[in-house]
């Protein structure tokens, strides 16, 4: 058994397809280029393949991870070259590596994620770094989230899961936020919660749909063992 990781980016129109669509897209891409994945055992076998972390609909991404197991060994040419040919425009495979077949899944290993958030307000309108500092110096940042099982709205404090936010002068002198948030199965916060609560805090005069979000990096622990090919 061989276990690989591929790093890829997602840009352009393809950012409008969901996490489930991405799973189907990759499993079909593997089939199209004849890459044989290892299947799980049981009544409903499915290919052993998973993403490190789902990406929200509408987000672009610079370095997403997918891990998968194959029956035979494949070269870099196949994993990047052949597979790339069967990808839709907007998905670019960047590099691939071998990961140990034992040990934790990617989802369990990822610790944090970096996001770039482009907001269509003028960078100089306010001292946004100060607004951010005020935002972060709150004791708690309470947000409402619908619980998956009970469907009830529950309040959670997201402050401990925000690692850092900084303001930058972005394109056309607009405001760009760089955020580092907890991400992964150990501790996770949806960037949507941070964006909406910050929008409210800073009383932005713009709508959510005018804001562009990109996930730039998924942070793995420094000792995570990848042999890049």
């Amino acid at each position, binding site marked *: 058994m061989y276990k690989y990781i591929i790093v890829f980016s997602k840009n352009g129109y393809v950012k409008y397809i969901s996490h489930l*669509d991405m799973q189907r897209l990759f499993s*079909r891409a*593997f*089939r199209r280029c004849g890459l044989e994945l290892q299947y799980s055992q049981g*009544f409903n076998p499915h290919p052993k393949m998973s993403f490190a972390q789902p990406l929200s609909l509408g987000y672009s991404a610079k370095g997403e991870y997918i891990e998968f197991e194959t029956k035979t060994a494949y070269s870099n040419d196949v994993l990047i070259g052949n597979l790339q040919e069967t990808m839709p425009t907007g998905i670019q495979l960047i590099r691939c590596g071998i990961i140990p077949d034992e040990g934790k899944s990617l989802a369990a290993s990822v610790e944090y994620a970096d996001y770039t958030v482009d907001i269509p307000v*003028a960078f100089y*309108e306010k001292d946004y770094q100060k607004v951010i500092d005020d935002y972060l110096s709150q004791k708690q940042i309470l947000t409402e989230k619908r619980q998956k099982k009970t469907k009830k709205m529950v309040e959670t404090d997201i402050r401990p899961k925000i690692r850092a936010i900084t303001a930058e002068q972005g394109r056309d002198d607009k405001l760009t936020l760089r955020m580092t948030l907890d991400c992964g199965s150990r501790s996770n916060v949806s960037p949507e919660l941070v964006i909406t609560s910050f929008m409210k805090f800073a009383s932005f005069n713009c709508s959510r*749909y005018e804001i562009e979000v990109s996930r730039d990096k998924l942070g793995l622990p420094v000792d995570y063992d990848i042999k890049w090919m």
Partner: protein
Amino acid sequence: MSANKRLTEKECYEMFRAYNTPDHVIAHCRAVSDTAVAIGRQLNDHGFDLDLDLIKMAGLIHDVARTNEHHEIIAADMLEKAGFTEEAAIVRVHMRYDFNSLDKINETDIMCLGDRVVKEDRYVGIDERVDYLIHKKGENPQRTESLLTKKQETKAFISHIEERIGMSIDSIFAPSLDQLLKQVEKPGRYIGNEINISVKETEKFDVRFAFAFPDLYEIGMSYVGLQILYNIVNKKENLYCERVFAPAADMEALMRDYSYPLFTLETKTPVKNMDVLGFTLQYEMSFTNILNMLELAGIPLLSKDRDDSWPLIIAGGPCAFNPEPLADFIDIFIVGDGEQALPELLETVADAKKSGKSKTELFKIISDRDGIYIPSFYDVYYNEDGTIQQYKKNWDGAPDRIRKSIIEDIEYAEFPMSTIVPLIDTVHDRAVVETFRGCTRGCRFCQAGMIYRPVRERKSDSILKIAEEQLKNSGHDELSILSLSTSDYSDFEDLTLKLTKFCKDKDVSLSLPSLRLDSFSFKVLEEIQKYKKSGLTFAPEAGTQRLRDIINKGITDKDIYDAVEQAIELGWRHVKLYFMIGLPGETYEDLDGIAEIARNIIGLHKKSGKGGRFNVTISISNFVPKAHTPFQWEPQDSTEEFRKKHEYLTERLKIKNVTYNYHDDEVSTCEAVIARGDRRCSDMLIKAHEAGCKFDGWSEYFNREAWKNVLEEGNGVFYSQRKRSYDEVLPWDIIDSGVTKSFLKSENDKAGLGDVTADCRQGCVGCGINSRVRCAQGGSDV
């Protein structure tokens, strides 16, 4: 103080703070600045040398003192004092400014233009901006007049700029598709970009064709006909076929709000820029969507309102066999198989375009081809009782009747080896191979069984080859075969064994729809559905043998019970049965028969001693008489009658473990009106469309009130509930399906007597198709 000191964005915002400029004014300033810069950039691209940075800063600061009287003077004085002389000069004049001529254009012109086309914080164009100003502070005739003069001056200035940059100012500020996509629930429907789509360079083709499916993406992409025609047209280098679907309600609302025109998925080109727009007519209840799509595209609905500058609007598919309700909207119908007729038509359009021929000249060239119906060549006259008196040609060259287009040997009808693979979930998302076209069974209610004659089979080697290629090119893990009656394929057992083995080897699941449930089928089903046994489905269509004989559905009670017994024995736990109500000759005893079958099946399960859960679903649809069938003369039940029958069945089917569902009555009534409608029905479609009707086939969107009014006004019962006499001129008589009217009559007469007609694989039944083409089922007496 340096004369050329330039304001920076940072300084601007400091000034806003110093002057307490309100947020909405700042937003306005930004919009003016962005707008003016965008116009300036276009001009610079066309030979001018404007200082865009100056335009940007002057725009941004121009209303800094807006809360004051004579704000432009205060702002200009302040700017001058601070050393920003150029900005100050522009701001000083922005309230009253006369534009220069184009050759003397400067930064002030552009900033002031920006100010005149922005309303609050959004580009709206000069008209809307002036309207807004006129009504803003209470109307004042003197002020209104001066504003209107300014508007004319500005318009003249704009048109000079537009001439130079070769595009409209509006188009510079058209909203981006991204803006819309971010606000809708399923943006993946509108992005195109799928695997195996055709991408062509715009210079290389002569005719751009948009294939329009008048329903949602998820439905349209499940339609194999789209894949077939897309593949065939795009194989031709000089033609380019793109796709367009009906946008969902949320997207449509945004498109209307932003004036964003209907576009193709491949290149996001407005549909109105196509040479040809072709609708597929799969279902009568999608017709209002066609009108809605034309409107969203900005194309006039009626053919007579479209001159040669508009795209040709064509349509094809099963509903083109009664094209009349759409005759006022569609320029050309393609009736019958499209694999040859469509590319041939598009090639002719290419020639006509090259040689500068008019639409009418084109119509004359193609009008005698098989399958081409040009409604504008015929005028319809009516009798006093509302029936049709006659069709009169207004051009002698037009044919008396339109013979459907037929592909004689479907081996030559190219089937796609490589299909578009959607990125989002669709209804049917799998590889599909058509095994044969047509059907030999002769069910008297079935339109497909009549209009797709003769039966034409694909060789089993070709089927396997296509399946293999499609799976390889798509990455699908499911294969389905397509035909009107799977088990009727001549070499069915051999083909199925091969497909089963092939799919097993490839880890692909095989789906065999509408199987005849004999012992062989069960063997196959056992093989392909080892773990997940989906429900067993069966379509007896009628509850008693008597009624099944009337409709010529060759299934007996014994067939049903034998199959169910076997299914129970093999461990199936769910049986689904399809019936129709309102069939000609139906009585309430036939409805009792439906309940009887359900009860007997439950009884069979009890008797088997298998125990465990077991349920039966009875699914009822309402009979809709269709054109070109033996029942085309028959009345349909009224909505009330259907309702009564449903209530009756609800009572009878209160049986433990039996679920019962039925089709919407009002939708069926509507469908019946359009299915056998004439040209006067186009008025009903327009009225329904104007009342906002769309997605009528979706019960949750069906607008009952609106359609009720439309049908009442248009005398809907004339079309749905009236029994026609054999000598009446029917609206679809203009279309020759290849099956003769005398055959349909004799079938209807036999139905009245309860006589059955055998499957034509057992001997020719004389439908007439063999006088058009060779029919494998015989009929040597041509």
